[in-house]
């Protein structure tokens, strides 16, 4: 006998004692609770139901307010449930509804209790069990209790009926088959005169319609009646929500409901109803100008109201209306801009969204100016919010709205100087992206980068490090546009770069390498042009744009190395003199020397590369410049050859890489993507460990040391990423799911693409052609019309925009299928009872499931190709004809004919009506034909 004795149950702590005790514990609350839990564990085993139920009540208190686990008591809760006393039942139901979930093991045992209580004569017991069912129903419960719910739906106790109606929603969700049984009664309740029941029914339909509106279109007349007749604002709001979902599906319905909705809007004093009307109009009746005007008028009233809630909602309504009727926003522009400095951060963000909606290619400069000024003044959070939205708006659709890229690049530079700026990463991406895509902007880009690099203050802000790495990369990659490469070099090697994280220092070094090569080459060319041109055959044409060919008169300047003075005044002039080269080389040696001992392998290696290069060229260069003798000329030629070689390696242009580029690389022979790499991991485990701490192969800033080397790396990269994701990919394939558009992850991991896929660039047009053939429609709107003002060419990879979309379609298609499937029953449901549902019918239904599946997929894929779609529809019609006799049985049973029949046919409306009236298939897919049921 483990239960408590009589004394225990007499002196049991009540809930009140527990709460009081808890409140007295200033410290050690946890200890008190665990002691109480111990007591409860003992008490709950008692055979006395009062003791048990009190224990359960205490436990539910601790569970719901102190979040203690009460799963150990699930069985005890069931025991209390079986008590005949109402007070015990109430406690038990409460405990169950807070602690049970779908995988609770004793869930199966509750069915009979619920069934008993659902058919109890005490309405409060019925209410309790309904309440509980609405929370814990799973498939089994929903299935087993459907008959009881069905009975209660027409209970003459309104109190019970309204609850049953509300519970139906959960039952439908869990067990769609129940729709066949209950739907008709649910619809009948729409005509109930009791406001509470009506409110409950409308609430249920509102939830159902939000998931699959088209199924409920046939009920529109009933809803319309409620919309016109009802005086209850709660009900009206729900009905409006339903119409907001239905109206876009059926234009005639939209025309019908506009008037009553506008009436409500004018008449009512309740702000909630006004707002719901406004929202319905701006979301679903957007075509109707007079209604929209009225709604916008109401929105304006909201905006000028004192109440911040109305202000917020007004702004929200405006942002819904903005895409279609921009005038509504521009009319209230002043207010919106003013709200940017509101006290409430939510209102600020909402108005920021609106301001961004106003942005077009004409005013982007102006608005960005205003916003950046706001950002300077506002608090850090909002400042970054502003910067983020400027960045995302401007980069939308491959910088669609940007015409003047020089301006935009300088804006980026300016934004990064705002003290609170934390958007370094995003700006980094855009700087590099623009650099690769827009050729004309590169000089300005280099200029902006220079300003960023040269400012030692920026190095202290860790949020900007990413941005600086972009600036460094840009100035290295496009150094030929630089006005003063020597100055760049100094900026890249300045002492404060030690503040940077290793990965970015590595980029700095690499950029410095590029700049160095460029300087040396320029120097050689200058010399070549003065002294009997040494290499007349292969002068790189990209060079020398900015470098003035100055006469080289100080060739014989002494070349004594003065290692200490590295910051000499050498880089004031743009031309590169012998002395400046010497200083440059010294600077490199001085700055990179210490890095040879760096802990970071990447830095060490790159520094060594650069220094090796300097060693290789320095002696020859200097020698040859001192005395132009024949023997040393040979040496000089060697050095310059090296330099040229390096320059050649760097001068190949990098371009944006399409997110789908990975798929175009054909699989090398020896590569097994599907193989399980479990064994390999064991072997490689030890090898990987040491290198992984700082040096990663797939480092985003992998540079190419030579063309062949870079190719190798691409392959390595791809192999690696493929291996690691192969399992995931296979999983996705098996389930037909694409959590992310493929290739995207790759883009993310490679912040800027490692190198250009030569084949890709070469064939851009061919690829585009193929794609155009496939998706003509989706692409055409993206192509910009010719600008009056010449806009620089922006390299676009069509696949980048197109591919993920189609992936998303398949995903949403799958979701659609599921929803379609679960709601598919609704139309056929009201026809008959469960009992006389022949199994053949059920099979037929299953077929419909798969059918609708196919159909929806076609809709998604076939948009651009009407003829083929029509053909397919035709065949569908045929299939349906095969099945129609089976369906007829059911249909004949319906006496209120037309209306309900539509319910069964509206989903396949076009097939059915076409088949019935032998009409040609000349309707669009989205709007099934619905005969004039509207009043």
């Amino acid at each position, binding site marked *: 006998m483990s239960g408590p004795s*009589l004394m225990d149950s007499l002196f049991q702590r009540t809930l009140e004692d527990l709460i009081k005790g808890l409140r007295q514990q200033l410290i050690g609350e946890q200890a008190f609770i665990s002691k109480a839990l111990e007591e409860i564990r003992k008490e709950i085993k008692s055979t006395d139901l009062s003791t048990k139920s009190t224990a359960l009540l205490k436990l539910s*208190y601790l569970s719901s307010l102190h979040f203690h686990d009460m799963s150990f008591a699930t069985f005890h809760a069931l025991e209390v449930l079986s008590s005949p006393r109402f007070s*015990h039942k109430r406690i038990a139901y409460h405990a169950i509804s807070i602690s049970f979930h779908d995988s609770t093991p004793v869930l199966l045992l509750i069915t009979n209790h619920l069934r008993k209580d659902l058919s109890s004569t005490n309405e409060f017991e019925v209410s309790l069990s309904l309440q509980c069912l609405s929370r814990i129903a799973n498939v089994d419960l929903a299935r087993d209790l459907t008959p009881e719910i069905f009975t209660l739906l027409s209970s003459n106790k309104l109190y019970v009926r309204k609850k049953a109606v509300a519970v139906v929603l959960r039952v439908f969700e869990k067990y769609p088959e129940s729709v066949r049984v209950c739907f008709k009664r649910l619809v009948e309740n729409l005509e109930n005169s009791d406001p509470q029941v009506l409110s409950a029914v409308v*609430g249920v339909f509102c939830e159902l319609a939000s998931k699959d509106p088209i199924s409920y279109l046939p009920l529109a007349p009933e809803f319309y009646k409620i919309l016109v007749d009802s005086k209850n604002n709660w009900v009206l709001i729900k009905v409006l929500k339903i119409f907001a979902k239905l109206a876009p599906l059926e234009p005639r319905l939209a025309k019908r409901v506009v008037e009553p909705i506008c009436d409500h809007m004018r008449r009512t004093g309740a702000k909630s109803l006004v707002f719901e009307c406004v929202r319905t109009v701006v979301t679903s009746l957007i075509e109707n100008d007079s209604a929209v005007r009225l709604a916008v008028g109401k929105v304006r009233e909201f905006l000028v109201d004192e109440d911040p809630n109305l202000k917020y909602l007004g702004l929200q309504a405006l942002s819904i209306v903005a895409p279609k009727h921009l005038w509504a926003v521009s009319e209230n522009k002043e207010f919106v801009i003013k709200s940017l400095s509101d006290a409430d951060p*939510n209102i600020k963000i909402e108005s920021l969204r609106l301001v961004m909606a106003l942005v077009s290619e004409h005013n982007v400069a102006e608005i960005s100016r205003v916003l950046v000024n706001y950002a300077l003044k506002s608090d850090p959070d909002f400042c970054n919010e502003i910067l983020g939205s400027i960045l995302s708006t401007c980069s939308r659709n491959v910088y669609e709205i940007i015409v003047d890229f020089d301006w935009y690049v300088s804006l980026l530079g300016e934004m990064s100087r705002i003290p609170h700026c934390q958007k370094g990463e995003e700006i980094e991406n855009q700087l590099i992206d623009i650099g690769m895509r827009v050729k004309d902007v590169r000089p300005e880009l280099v200029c902006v980068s220079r300003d960023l690099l040269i400012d030692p203050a920026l190095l202290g802000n860790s949020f900007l490090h990413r941005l600086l790495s972009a600036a460094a990369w840009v100035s290295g990659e496009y150094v030929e546009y630089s006005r003063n490469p020597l100055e760049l070099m100094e900026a890249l090697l300045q002492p404060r770069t030690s503040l940077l994280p290793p990965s970015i220092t590595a980029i700095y070094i690499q950029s410095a390498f590029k700049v160095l090569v460029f300087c040396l080459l320029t120097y050689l060319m200058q010399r070549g042009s003065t002294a009997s041109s040494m290499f007349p055959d292969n002068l790189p044409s990209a060079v020398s744009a900015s470098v003035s060919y100055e006469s080289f008169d100080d060739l014989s300047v002494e070349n004594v190395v003065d290692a200490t003075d590295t910051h000499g005044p050498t880089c004031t002039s743009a031309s590169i003199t012998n002395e400046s080269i010497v200083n440059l080389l010294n600077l490199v040696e001085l700055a990179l020397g210490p890095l040879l001992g760096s802990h970071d392998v990447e830095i060490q290696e790159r520094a060594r590369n650069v220094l090796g290069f300097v060693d290789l060229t320095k002696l020859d260069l200097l020698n040859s410049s001192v005395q132009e003798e024949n023997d040393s000329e040979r040496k000089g030629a060697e050095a310059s050859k090296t330099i040229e070689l390096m320059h050649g390696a760097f001068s190949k242009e990098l371009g944006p890489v399409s997110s789908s580029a990975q798929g175009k690389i054909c699989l090398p022979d020896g590569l097994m993507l599907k193989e399980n790499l479990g064994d390999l991991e064991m072997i490689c485990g030890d090898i990987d460990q040491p290198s992984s701490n700082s040096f990663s192969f797939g480092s985003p800033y992998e540079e190419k040391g030579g063309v062949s080397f870079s190719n190798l790396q691409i392959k390595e990269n791809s192999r690696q990423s493929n291996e690691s994701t192969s399992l995931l990919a296979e999983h996705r394939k098996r389930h037909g799911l694409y959590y992310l558009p493929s290739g995207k992850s790759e883009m993310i991991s490679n912040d800027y693409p490692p190198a250009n896929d030569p084949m890709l660039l070469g064939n851009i047009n061919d690829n585009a052609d193929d794609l155009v053939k496939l998706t003509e429609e989706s692409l055409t709107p993206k192509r910009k019309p010719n600008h009056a003002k010449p806009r620089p060419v922006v390299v676009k990879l069509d696949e980048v925009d197109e591919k993920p979309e189609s992936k998303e379609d398949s995903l949403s298609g799958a979701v659609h299928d599921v929803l379609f499937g679960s709601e598919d029953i609704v139309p056929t449901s009201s026809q008959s009872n469960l009992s006389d549902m022949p199994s053949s019918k059920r099979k037929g239904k299953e077929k419909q499931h798969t059918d609708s599946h196919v159909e929806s997929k076609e809709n998604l894929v076939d948009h651009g190709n009407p003829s083929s779609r029509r053909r397919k529809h035709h065949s569908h019609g045929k299939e349906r004809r095969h099945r129609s006799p089976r369906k007829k049985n059911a249909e004949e049973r319906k006496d209120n004919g037309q209306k309900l029949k539509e319910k069964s046919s509206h989903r396949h409306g076009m097939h059915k009506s076409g088949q019935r009236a032998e009409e040609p298939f000349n309707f669009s897919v989205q709007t099934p034909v619905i005969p004039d049921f509207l009043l």
Partner: protein
Amino acid sequence: MIHFVLLISRQGKVRLTKWYSPYSQKERTKVIRELSGVILTRGPKLCNFVEWRGFKVVYKRYASLYFCMCIDQDDNELEILEIIHHYVEILDRYFGSVCELDLIFNFHKAYYILDELLIAGELQESSKKTVARLIAAQDSLVETAKEQASSISNIIAQATK
């Protein structure tokens, strides 16, 4: 629909939680921690809506208690504010000028009242009078049961069983 209802005191103590959508115990604590961080820090004259994880949370402060309800994106915020006010008025009527202490000591009654007001995340009863009547009727059911249970003879009968 309403996904959950929370009553949080100004000090961040939870006074009532009601979940209409499935949340595990772990998620529940996390949700409450997150939301009380967001809501309690908001100033007094700001709007009553907070966007949170793709949902909207409507809250209103009454004295020392914050009443919060989490709803879907397209639900009507003003309606929810009215529901909250409705609930407070019913509580007020039931307890007689309700204060936080009433709710602390009668946490289960606050639940029962809420259960009469909302079901499955929807408003089910918009009349204050009806709710009051229903609760009173159920209370009297409980009272009669208690009287029976607490009579001495009953206890002795049980003990000697």
